[in-house]
């Protein structure tokens, strides 16, 4: 029965692998006030198979209303249909009297009909067209039909989907992860926020130039009504299209300390196909005479602007938001908050010792509280988020460690004698300030000095110097890049300038030494956490992707990234559990010693419950002192920035979809001794024996190596009945003594193309076989 099951799964897998998992590019609006329901447009690719949405946390639900194909695919009749529908909606608002005054050619014509309903075009913007005002209709018309439309086609966001999202009145405010569930997998997360403030969505056109253009859509005797100024506080959801500048009017009173906070890059941190690789928002405030009174293009080292604006006099003001170089596209979405609101900008100190009772000073704008307690419970990730009281904008981070700590008392240059190991919570208060910490060291003693500042949100661009008692410089450190090739493994995933310093040195003789810390940019006003200690070998673990789909018993691929610290070079053994606590088998669980990246396979339990669940991965290693260290893996997406750089972007959870159907390989026995002893310059004959006699008998079935180790190729393969005979060829310079081989299973078949009537060859990816270890035999 089980054997039949395998064959059946192989066949059923066809439709699964042949189709793509959905991809979500953006959602507009990118958030909602709790207690409200909103309509949102989600842009992406392969949306046609979407069956629902999954939003992390409690209290937020969503339903798909309609999925729309890309607008550019419409033919002339369909475009005419859209145009006439739009004009008819306009004429309904204008009324017959006004329409009669218009020239004949400007009036709405007959709406084309279609023999088949599926030919009728649909656009998300046309949903509930009758409820839209003239301004909105005008903008839809301009966007679709204006010959000057500068919107570039972007296939990855060309399909749209209308969704209705509801946030319960008690929904926790903050960011959520929204994923699209499809028939053939689910998407990587896109960010959706739940807020406390009243929200409005921008109504285009809201720039003067666009309004002039818009006037062409109206009969000459009619003018656009002027929108009332916005009442503060307010959160505006907007979208910047090419050349777009959104302007919003508001009234304010002299002396008000207004804050304008923009979230743009925070929503979509990286765009692979844009330079710069995110929507780089800038905001400007104008007074009622059109004079610029405030401008902001960042928030310290973060690209999203945070503008603090002391209102000079009572009156009407206008805020403008745009891209810094006037780009624009559908995924340039933003959330802009305006009001005399509390904003947390930074904290001090930047951390505390695990298990201690600790609090921090809060700094920011319009804050009514200046202290907050830290969660120092041991065992969690060392970098933690400070959850400020509801309604306070801004997020800060702190660090929890097990070493003893001191906090720099004085504001100004510190010169303190310290005992190692130690973590110093300090700050560079003024430009050109330098703090120095003196300690006694022994000849040959290894010491490490590590700064945590940028990683915790401090703007400090640190430099470190180690000096001996005569003042001679022994070591120097500036930026410490956690990077392999083009992949940045920075812990936050967001810092493109890894400015924190890391210094390691062997002390030349017994004596007094000093560690100096300063700001390379001479800015000051920045906190830090400085660890001076002997090496503390340890590791951090990231795992990707964060959207895995497999059937019960199925195999999926995971990649683990190891961030090694203080000389830790050992092997790390992976283990994984489902959200239910059920163990998941990892085929080659050991990340070889010294490796920073390792791809292997997981196999789901056959009795895994279908549906969405989480997957928790952890790594265990033995330190040099024989102590066993365990670290939970941080789920992270491998995201590309501006065509080249890649970043590991942490996500809230690693989600796993236990699918109803999919490729389930049978139990397979490797006939050779494990681990496979591959040798440089030699061919290795590998035989796989499946538990079912016809497992490899299916016509068109192929095995190929997935990301083979360097120097390894699949020279030949013969699939016959229950056996797969494979020849693995190693190059002369092959030198690996550990690792694995992962085989990808594909099927090639012919299918007739409906349009041409010709047969075309398709290759369909079915899935993977469990990883096979390679290495030196014991």
């Amino acid at each position: 029965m089980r054997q039949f099951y395998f064959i059946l799964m192989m066949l059923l897998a066809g439709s699964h692998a042949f189709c793509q998992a959905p991809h979500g590019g953006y959602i507009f609006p990118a958030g909602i006030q709790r207690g409200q329901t909103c309509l949102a447009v989600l842009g992406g690719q392969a949306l046609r198979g979407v069956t629902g949405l999954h939003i992390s946390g409690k209290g937020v639900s969503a339903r798909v209303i309609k999925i729309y194909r890309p607008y550019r695919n419409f033919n002339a009749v369909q475009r005419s249909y859209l145009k006439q529908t739009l004009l008819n909606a306009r004429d309904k608002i204008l009324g017959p009297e006004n329409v009669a005054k218009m020239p004949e050619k400007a009036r709405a014509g007959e709406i084309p009909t279609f023999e088949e309903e599926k030919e009728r075009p649909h656009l998300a913007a046309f949903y509930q067209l009758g409820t839209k005002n003239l301004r909105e209709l005008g903008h839809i018309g301009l966007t679709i039909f204006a010959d000057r439309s500068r919107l570039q086609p972007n296939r990855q966001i060309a399909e749209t989907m209308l969704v209705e999202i509801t946030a319960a009145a008690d929904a926790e405010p903050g960011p959520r992860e929204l994923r699209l569930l499809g028939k053939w997998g689910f998407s990587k997360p896109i960010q959706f926020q739940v807020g406390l403030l009243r929200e409005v969505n921008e109504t285009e056109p809201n720039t003067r130039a666009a309004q002039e253009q818009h006037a062409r859509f109206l009969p000459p005797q009619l003018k656009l009504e002027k929108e009332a100024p916005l009442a503060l506080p307010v959160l505006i959801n907007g979208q910047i299209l090419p050349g777009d500048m959104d302007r919003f009017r508001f009234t304010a009173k002299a002396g008000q300390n207004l804050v304008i906070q923009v979230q743009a890059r925070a929503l979509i941190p990286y765009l692979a196909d844009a330079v710069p690789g995110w929507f780089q928002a800038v905001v400007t405030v104008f007074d009622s005479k059109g004079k610029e009174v405030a401008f902001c293009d960042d928030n310290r080292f973060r690209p999203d602007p945070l503008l603090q604006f002391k209102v000079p006099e009572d009156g009407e003001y206008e805020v403008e938001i745009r891209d810094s170089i006037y780009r624009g596209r559908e995924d340039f979405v933003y959330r802009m908050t305006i009001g005399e609101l509390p904003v947390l900008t930074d904290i001090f100190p930047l951390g505390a010792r695990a298990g201690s009772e600790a609090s921090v000073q809060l700094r920011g704008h319009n804050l009514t509280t200046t202290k907050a307690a830290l969660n120092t419970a041991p065992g969690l990730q060392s970098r933690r988020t400070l959850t400020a009281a509801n309604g306070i904008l801004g997020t800060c981070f702190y660090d929890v460690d097990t070493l003893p700590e001191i906090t720099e008392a004085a504001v100004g240059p510190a010169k303190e004698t310290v005992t190692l190991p130690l973590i110093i919570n300090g700050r560079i208060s003024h430009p050109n300030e330098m703090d120095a910490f003196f300690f006694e060291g022994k000849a040959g003693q290894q010491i490490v000095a590590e700064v945590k500042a940028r990683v915790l949100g401090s703007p400090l661009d640190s430099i470190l110097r180690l000096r001996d008692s005569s003042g001679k410089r022994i070591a120097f450190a500036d930026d410490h890049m956690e990077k392999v090739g083009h992949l940045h493994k920075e812990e936050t995933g967001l810092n493109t300038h890894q400015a924190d310093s890391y210094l390691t040195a062997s002390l030349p003789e017994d004596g007094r030494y000093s560690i100096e810390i300063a700001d390379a940019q001479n800015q000051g006003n920045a906190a830090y956490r400085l660890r001076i200690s002997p090496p503390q070998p340890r590791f951090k673990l990231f795992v990707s992707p964060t959207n895995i789909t497999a059937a019960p018993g199925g195999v999926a691929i995971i990649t683990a990234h190891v961030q090694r610290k203080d000389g830790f070079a050992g092997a790390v053994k992976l283990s994984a559990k489902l959200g239910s606590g059920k163990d998941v088998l990892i085929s080659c669980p050991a990340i070889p010693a010294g490796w920073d990246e390792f791809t292997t396979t997981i196999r789901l339990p056959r009795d895994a419950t279908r549906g969405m669940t989480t997957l928790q991965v952890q790594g265990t290693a033995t330190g040099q002192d024989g102590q066993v260290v365990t670290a939970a893996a941080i789920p992270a997406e491998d995201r590309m920035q501006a065509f080249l750089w890649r970043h590991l972007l942490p996500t809230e959870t690693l989600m796993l979809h236990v699918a109803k159907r999919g490729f389930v390989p049978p139990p397979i026995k490797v006939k050779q001794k494990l681990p496979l002893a591959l040798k440089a310059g030699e061919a290795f004959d590998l035989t796989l024996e499946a538990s079912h006699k016809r497992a490899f008998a299916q016509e068109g079935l192929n095995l190929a190596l997935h990301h083979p180790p360097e120097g390894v190729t699949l020279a030949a393969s013969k699939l016959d009945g229950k056996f797969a005979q494979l020849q693995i060829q190693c190059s002369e310079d092959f030198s690996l003594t550990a690792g694995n081989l992962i085989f990808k299973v594909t099927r090639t078949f012919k299918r007739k193309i409906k349009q041409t009537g010709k047969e075309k060859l398709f290759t369909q990816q079915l899935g993977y076989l469990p990883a096979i270890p390679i290495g030196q035999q014991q």
Partner: protein
Amino acid sequence: MKQSRVSRRDALKLGLTATAGLSLPKLFAQPAFAGPKTTPAKAKSVIQIWMWGGPAHLDTFDPKPAAGRDFCGPLDKPIATNVDGIQIGQLLPKLAKHADKYSIIRSMTHGVQAHETASYITQTGHAPGRLVYPCAGAVVSKFFGVDAGYKGIVPPYIVLNQPQGRFSEAGLLGEKYKPFATGGDPAKKPFVVEGIVAKGISDKRQLSRRGLLGALDLFGKSNPDHPLLKQHDGSVAEAYEMIFGPAKELFDLEKEDAKLRERYGMNTFGQNCLMARRLVEKGVPYVTINYKGWDTHKGHFGIMNQKLPEMDAAMATLLEDLKSRGLLENTIVWWGGEFGRGPKVQWKAPWNGGRSHFGHCFSSVLAGGGFKGGTVIGESDATGSEVKDRPVHPKHVIASIYTQMGIDPEGRLPNPRNLDLKVMPDAQDGLLKEIM
């Protein structure tokens, strides 16, 4: 008032023309040579086909059909050429018939993935550093141009049509050796050449503009002895000579046989290849065709289906045309971009079947000017991801081109700052001796 019709743009055009090193001669002549000589020169001219953006080596001159769909996409059926054992991409059937005329380097490498740096390295042969080195065109212009008594009817270093900007420029050699970029589009009628042929403007009107410009030149009149202005005036005068002299004829592609034009392809690249042939025929030592559109991050294979046939027809006809006129023997045709493209196809969003930048391993092609054809230099691995044999760096290609032109790569590169620089140092060990 006609005076109001003179635009600032026109005045600027003339100004730019003057600063682009157009000390224009009056006679036709073969290029002379003023540099560190090496063996007798085999080549007199170079046509550089700059594949702007980086062409996919797997889909052009280094196909890997065995690598599978993840590497080849739909282009997995390479074709045989007229040279035994050499296969090229399936969308290059015309070039396949001329493989005996060119050699393929399949082991180009510099490891850089960014356009700007990679362009600098492939155009100059140097890694970025303290000094900004000139690109090969500027070096050739230095040794074969006006310093060497070049008396061609157009400047010695021409770019068809859009300049690359700072990556195809003269670097430390100075403004004088920058290329003259024609602008315009030779596939259109007329071929509007920046400062030479203007659409819809008669010669008479152009001359009246010149008079007007002189009348408005109050600054020049108040500083008649200023050396810079004198140089500028001279260049403007020469630019006008070019506009109304034989250069205008040279850029008139209507003078070519219509069938030949069609064989080249009635598109920008095709007509640029024809224009390049006309230029080298008149003794221009260096012509660069900046062929845009190869930065195919998205929808790569659709673009290949459109562009490769265009490239195939034009380049094959260029080789054939040069050969039939006896020009190929002394004209180097150099094909390549700043890098290749990622061997592994990026099927997922946002690329949807795109190829990324790839500087670890890519291909270049050399033909004519003493380079032997029908040869493959170097080898890439099974997927075109790594150089397997005989790594060739851009400096080796450039030094080989210089050598064929009679310029000693180890010779001194004269420069305004009088620095002790060599033309293309440290490249002797990698010269393309297999085809020289």
